């Protein structure tokens, strides 16, 4: 039976670290995806995540978490703030979720969403040994997946952080806006635009029917 947030908090306060392990197991990979998107280095991202978990543990045992929000939302706020602080320290740079003027940019080729994205092509001979690409459709399917992967890995943090919060951390638009201190409209706009741009890139190469074969 899954324990509620209140039960977990009560157990941790009593000194039961196994309850903390339960939430850590549940949240670690989701939160790691977020720290990776900000720090872009596995070791730094794991260190940051450990630091965030320690802050959460201290907050619970020190009764600083007042249960005004969900435990996971509270934790992702800690993760985001810690990652941004570490980013500033490690990279000696300012991290700004606002640095890209989304409202002002256009859907044209070369906008901020695709400035680091290069057209993905599959080298069939390279993949023959690893995958069964005997049929043309298999190649297409792999190529579509690679396009999505390359696109997601190339988009700026200002988009990828929001997408990670939405798709991986399961945070609502409101919660994301609250954590990032951005207007709700900007959050919705960025998710919509990032996804739409991806759709546009794929539909340039493949028809809807072709894509739907893999759904």
């Amino acid at each position: 039976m899954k324990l509620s947030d209140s039960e977990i908090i009560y157990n941790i306060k009593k000194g039961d670290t196994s309850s903390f392990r339960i939430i850590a197991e549940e949240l670690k990979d989701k939160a790691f995806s977020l720290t990776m998107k900000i720090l872009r280095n596995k070791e730094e991202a794991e260190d940051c995540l450990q630091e965030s978990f320690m802050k959460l543990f201290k907050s619970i045992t020190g009764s600083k978490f007042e249960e005004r929000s969900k435990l996971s939302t509270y934790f992702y706020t800690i993760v985001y703030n810690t990652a941004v602080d570490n980013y500033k320290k490690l990279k000696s740079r300012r991290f700004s979720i606002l640095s890209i003027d989304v409202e002002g940019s256009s859907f044209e080729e070369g906008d901020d969403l695709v400035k680091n994205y290069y057209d993905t092509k599959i080298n069939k001979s390279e993949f023959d040994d690893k995958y069964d690409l005997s049929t043309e459709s298999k190649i297409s399917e792999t190529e579509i997946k690679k396009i999505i992967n390359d696109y997601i890995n190339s988009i700026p943090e200002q988009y990828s952080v929001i997408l990670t919060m939405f798709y991986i951390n399961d945070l609502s638009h409101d919660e994301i806006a609250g954590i990032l201190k951005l207007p709700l409209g900007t959050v919705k706009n960025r998710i919509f635009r990032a996804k739409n741009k991806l759709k546009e890139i794929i539909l340039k190469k493949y028809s809807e029917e072709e894509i739907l074969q893999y759904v």
Partner: protein
Amino acid sequence: MKKFSFILNNFYSIFNPMPQGNNKNIDSYLDDSIRHSLRSETSEDFMYEMMKRVEIEKEFAREDRKTDKTVKFVIGGLVAVMILIAFGLPFFFGTSDADSSYGYYNIMIDQIAGSIEYFSIFMTDNLGIAVNSKTVLVLLISGLCIFLFSKADKLFLKKSLNQN
């Protein structure tokens, strides 16, 4: 008067329904693919390392609580001793032939001074340490400073932890 314009495309949805089902499928396919691309996984020993830190933190917290109790006990003891010296001793060692018109506080101050003097003589005779009213004053001020410092330190520490 509003101009009525007949656009054939307005009836597109009636005669040729929009392929909403397909779009929905493409959208859900894209959602799943984005989710898959965004996901990262921690290394295998991550949980082990983290739980080790949690156990250490738990132990530290327990030690902190113990230290906190000891410090409170010591500070409380010191304050009690100081109060005892300042107010209690005069009544034990003070003279009782004071003039009642002299005023209670003046009598008390005289008694404190008298008891300090008595205490000083006692210390010099038995331990060879000279204690006068200035020494006691310095001790009292030092004690007060330690007490205030420990309180202020905790207050600032709490604030900084809350900010984190």
